[in-house]
């Protein structure tokens, strides 16, 4: 082929390819969370005062500087609560394996202060691995947090004078400025967290 024609053909090909790529980028929407519901605007956490597993004050300030996945449950729950915390711990591990820079901490908030002491939540949280913290505290302080975040919990009597605790199954994503940003509903699947968390934590 004539060298000039060959050059013309190559230039045309490059121009067409570039145009097609630009058109694709302009019309294809960016990746978005598939499972989590993002709040229209970040909601600052209210003031509250609970205790961590060492008996130290745990409040809104303790949540600044890092992302957190917050889950409300109770330790006398052998099924849903451990299942949820295992998924969240696995999500942390998966993000770390992927080399992600931002790894959220997991915060277990006990809504059963009658049975869940500081020592209890410390041992319980440790069961699920690093990066998992348990907190407990006075009912009134819990209500300050749960009422503002739309979290429900309540005692349900069972046989023999015992009781269970019904509680919201949601997991809340809190940003480094201690603001409620997004929520994951049940059932909690590892793949959903692995997909959505990097996108959520990268959002402005």
């Amino acid at each position, binding site marked *: 082929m004539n060298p000039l024609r060959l050059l013309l053909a190559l230039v045309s090909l490059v121009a067409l390819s570039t145009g097609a790529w630009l058109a694709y980028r302009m019309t294809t929407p960016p990746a978005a969370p598939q499972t989590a519901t993002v709040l229209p605007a970040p909601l600052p956490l209210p003031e509250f005062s609970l205790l961590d597993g060492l008996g130290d004050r745990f409040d809104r300030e303790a949540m600044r500087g890092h992302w957190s996945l917050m889950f409300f449950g109770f330790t006398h729950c*052998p*099924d*849903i609560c451990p299942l949820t915390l295992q998924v969240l711990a696995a999500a942390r591990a998966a993000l770390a394996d992927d080399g992600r820079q931002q790894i959220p901490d997991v915060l277990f908030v006990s809504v059963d202060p009658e049975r869940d002491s500081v*020592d209890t939540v410390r041992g319980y949280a440790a069961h699920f691995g690093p990066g998992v913290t348990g907190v407990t505290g006075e009912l009134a302080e819990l209500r300050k947090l749960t009422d503002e975040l739309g979290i*429900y919990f309540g005692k349900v009597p069972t046989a023999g004078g015992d009781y*269970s605790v*019904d509680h919201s199954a949601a997991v809340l994503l809190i940003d480094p400025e201690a603001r409620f940003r997004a929520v994951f509903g049940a059932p909690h699947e590892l793949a959903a967290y692995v997909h959505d968390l990097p996108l959520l934590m990268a959002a402005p």
Partner: protein
Amino acid sequence: MSRSPATAALLLLLAACTGSGPSLVAENVEITRPLPGSGMSAAYLELHNSSPEEIRITRVVSPEFAAVELHESLVEDGVARMRPLDSLVVPARGMLLLARGGKHLMLHGAAPAPDTVSLQFYADGELLLTVTAPVGD
């Protein structure tokens, strides 16, 4: 049509031979390690019923735990609930699944924490099945 005593005896013998093997068997048994604090474990498994009648498990006992309770977890309108069950019904020629987030056995009061757990399944006082499984990690 009348049958001779010999024929009746033969039929009874055949019925005894073909009725061999338990009607209720368990598969994929998983026992979770007791949780710190509560000391509670959960048991998950499949119960298979090969008989033409449903089997209603009314009680489960474990020598390793003070109590075994039948429970079901459910999430309704975003709220997680755990409810006690009076029985576990395994359908005729069917299977009942006890799995995370659903029906399960709640085991509590173990001292010391066991490495192996034995579960005895009763239907109205009759022991139907004994299962032994190691505790998971």
